[in-house]
């Protein structure tokens, strides 16, 4: 048996996006030794793609804003199946976390009186998103990265975790390999934080990078943790649809926040056609009022383009299916029209949406200051993830914590734009703090060398099967299967078909073959990722079959209405003794009276 080198830290954090970096910084600030593992180079995580901003009720632009409004907006957006305690903590703590970033060097856009500027976004009643043009995620990750490197955090770049390691019931480390030479490494710790992001690569059309393969979801599941809310997938309404090779790349909601409107091929502004009842009294009655809102008129209601993402995505889907779409199967998103309202619109658009201008110019050869964009829904975010305690972010497995997109609870059935970046820093900090506390209160466990050897051997299998399956082909088929059968609009029959398809893919994935040597071999990495994607895909499908209603990011054609009975619990999946996936209902605890009162007050 090979002895793999062991790296030991009090706390190991897996994932170096916003949540992972924030967790590592906090744990380190609490005086423990921290190792931060990331699949890519530091500073490249998917957080850099976040464009619009981070939601925090600082009230810099509209002083009517406060944590109570933010809390009730988040709960309404999540259709009340959120973990209300997480939504409360998030709304209360986000402002301090944003200000802290400024103290660490972040340079936000400013108000006229020199404060951090905040912008409008879908589902937020007041301008709430602290931002830097349309590259807020980059600002966040760079600020944390540059702050973190001076704190003595040990960073392990281009290292991929294969499995968590346990001692008894507790997580005490993980087995990983470094990508350059494929060499295995054992990381030993007293507490471990998962901050691995999303699962977008389970779908064909996605805004996610190759890294979004649900690693943390699968690692936690295999270690015995529960995943909740997996049926709730956010399809962002506006991804690029042309050219084909960039299909899915995100077009920030900030375009609509700055006045962009959605039109079908008849030139009709179709978002006015269908406004959900629970948003009627918050939505503009005509285009004029909508424009006044984006210009900061406090007496105006928001335009229907800024309704929640699940709703906007379905409206776009409806227009395309009805034959009213654009030539490449999307609809039109028009920001150029504001030239009717603003004399300097070209400069204004370039200043407010520089990355979007750049992205369309370069990739689609299209000038957004003069021409409408073609956009359509793209898999963007998973509301579901590891079930955690709201205050500590600890999972049901001792020593295992999770934060950011791979954790669940705050968003319920649908996440509001801007609540992700703030989620990362609020709960990243909490996860780091409580993981450090756990590490200080517990001793290191014992690594089971036989378990390590067996897991390493299994990971090397794809090199040994001459003439097996091409892992890229299996990944491709899985993405097609999920896109076609468990997408924006779902039915029982299609999802059962997906489950059958997943069985076949699981069999194929056990026979993958990769040629070449082990050094930086992307074929091998793809083969190993399949395990994670298959778990995630099954979890989504099983949970979606169980939820026989439509709510937020989960829409059933066979159950198109919301059913109050389903508001009382979340679905959880868990690995059973025999290795199969089970689904159960977890009742949502009664909300305390003071929070109920907040929701009533806010209307």
């Amino acid at each position, binding site marked *: 048996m090979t002895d793999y080198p062991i790296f030991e830290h009090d706390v190991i954090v897996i994932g170096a996006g916003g949540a992972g970096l924030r967790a590592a910084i906090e744990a380190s600030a609490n005086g423990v030794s921290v190792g931060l593992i990331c699949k*890519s180079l530091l500073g*490249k995580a998917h957080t*850099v793609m976040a464009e619009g901003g981070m939601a925090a009720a600082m009230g810099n632009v509209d002083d009517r804003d406060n944590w109570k409004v933010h809390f009730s907006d988040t709960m309404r957006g999540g259709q009340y199946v959120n973990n209300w305690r997480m939504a409360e903590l998030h709304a209360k703590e986000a402002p301090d976390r944003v200000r802290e970033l400024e103290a660490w060097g972040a*340079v936000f856009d400013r108000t006229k009186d020199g404060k951090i500027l905040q912008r409008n976004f879908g589902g937020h009643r007041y301008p709430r998103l602290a931002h830097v043009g349309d590259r807020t995620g980059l600002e966040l990750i760079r600020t944390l990265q540059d702050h973190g490197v001076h704190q003595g955090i040990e960073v392990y770049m281009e290292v991929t975790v294969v499995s968590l390691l346990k001692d008894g019931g507790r997580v005490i480390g993980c087995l990983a390999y470094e990508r350059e030479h494929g060499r295995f490494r054992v990381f030993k710790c007293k507490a471990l934080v998962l901050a691995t992001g999303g699962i977008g690569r389970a779908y064909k059309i996605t805004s996610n990078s190759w890294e979004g393969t649900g690693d943390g979801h699968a690692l936690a599941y295999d270690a015995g943790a529960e995943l909740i809310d997996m049926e709730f997938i956010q399809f962002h309404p506006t991804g690029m649809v042309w050219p084909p*090779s*960039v299909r899915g*790349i995100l077009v920030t909601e900030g375009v609509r926040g700055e006045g962009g409107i959605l039109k079908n091929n008849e030139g009709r502004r179709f978002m006015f056609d269908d406004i959900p009842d629970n948003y009627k009294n918050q939505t503009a009655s005509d285009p004029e009022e909508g424009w006044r809102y984006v210009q900061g008129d406090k007496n105006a209601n928001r335009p229907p383009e800024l309704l929640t993402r699940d709703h906007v995505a379905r409206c776009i889907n409806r227009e395309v299916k009805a034959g009213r779409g654009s030539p490449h199967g999307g609809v039109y998103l028009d920001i150029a029209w504001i030239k009717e309202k603003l004399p300097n619109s070209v400069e204004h658009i370039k200043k407010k949406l520089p990355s979007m201008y750049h992205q369309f110019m370069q990739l689609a050869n299209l000038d957004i200051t003069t021409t409408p964009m073609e956009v359509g829904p793209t898999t963007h975010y998973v509301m579901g993830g590891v079930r955690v305690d709201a205050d500590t972010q600890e999972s049901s497995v001792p020593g295992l914590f999770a934060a950011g997109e791979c954790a669940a609870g705050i968003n319920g059935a649908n996440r509001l734009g801007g609540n992700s970046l703030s989620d990362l820093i609020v709960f990243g900090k909490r996860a780091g703090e409580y993981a450090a506390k756990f590490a200080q209160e517990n001793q290191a466990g014992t690594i089971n060398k036989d378990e390590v050897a067996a897991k390493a051997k299994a990971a090397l299998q794809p090199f040994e099967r001459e003439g097996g399956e091409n*892992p890229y082909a299996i990944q491709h088929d899985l993405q097609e299967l999920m896109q076609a059968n468990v997408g924006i609009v779902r039915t029982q029959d299609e999802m059962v078909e997906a489950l059958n398809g997943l069985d076949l893919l699981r069999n194929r994935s056990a026979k993958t073959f990769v040629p070449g040597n082990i050094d930086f071999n992307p074929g091998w990495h793809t083969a190993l990722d399949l395990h994670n994607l298959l778990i995630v895909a099954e979890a989504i499908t099983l949970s979606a079959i169980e939820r026989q209603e439509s709510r937020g990011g989960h829409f059933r054609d066979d159950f198109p209405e919301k059913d109050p009975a389903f508001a009382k619990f979340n679905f959880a999946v868990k690995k059973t003794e025999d290795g199969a996936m089970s689904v159960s209902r977890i009742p949502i605890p009664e909300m305390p009276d003071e929070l109920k009162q907040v929701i009533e007050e806010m209307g």
Partner: protein
Amino acid sequence: MARATFSIRRGGRETAELVDYQTDVTEGMVVLDAVHQIQAESAPDLACRWNCKAGKCGSCSAEINGMPRLMCMTRLDTIDLTQKVTIEPMRAFPPVKDLITDVSWNYEVKKRIKKFKPRKPDAEDGTWRIQQEDVDRVQEFRKCIECYLCQDVCHVLRDHAKHQEFIGPRFLVYSAALEMHPLDTEDRTGDLKDLFGIGYCNITKCCTKVCPEHITITDNAIIPLKERVVDEHYDPIGKLVKLFRKEKG
């Protein structure tokens, strides 16, 4: 459907060769798409870095027909496809495998630059007041996606390998972002002069030309930094005057 030939560096740290691959080209494709197609069709072990595929993470830097570019932002219809298209790794860093280079030096350099040190908060609630016009310049620098193409093209690093004495355009921009940050109180001019080799830059502006974020590296970052270094370290009278002004202000 058109087919094109891509000549891609294959090999490890020591030895390598250019290998030709053919693949189909469809409308709107970028170089990274071609590399991915080749991986899926004929070279599953072809190594390249990439993440966002939208020009925001700066992972897929390479030299395409000899030009430092992001593979994800280089459209095939901007390249002559009747000729072989060469794709090679950045040359200013040691090769690791295929298109991947060892960029760890950059991370080490960054650690050596003194961190952000803000002045005391302006308001009682611990926050600051800053005007937008005072951060416009710094925001330009902070657009940097750390693709290191500027480092790759800089002749001080690329041709003369002065990695030990010179931090390169990326970290001059980084230093400028800190030095010109309206809240920052640290002084890095001594380090820039003595440790970071700012004098090596002779303003050929190659870095500015390749920057995918269109940061005016030389004019807006490096030249003003050079002036600060001169003011602080080679102009004793000016320094006295400034000191006097600071005390008054």
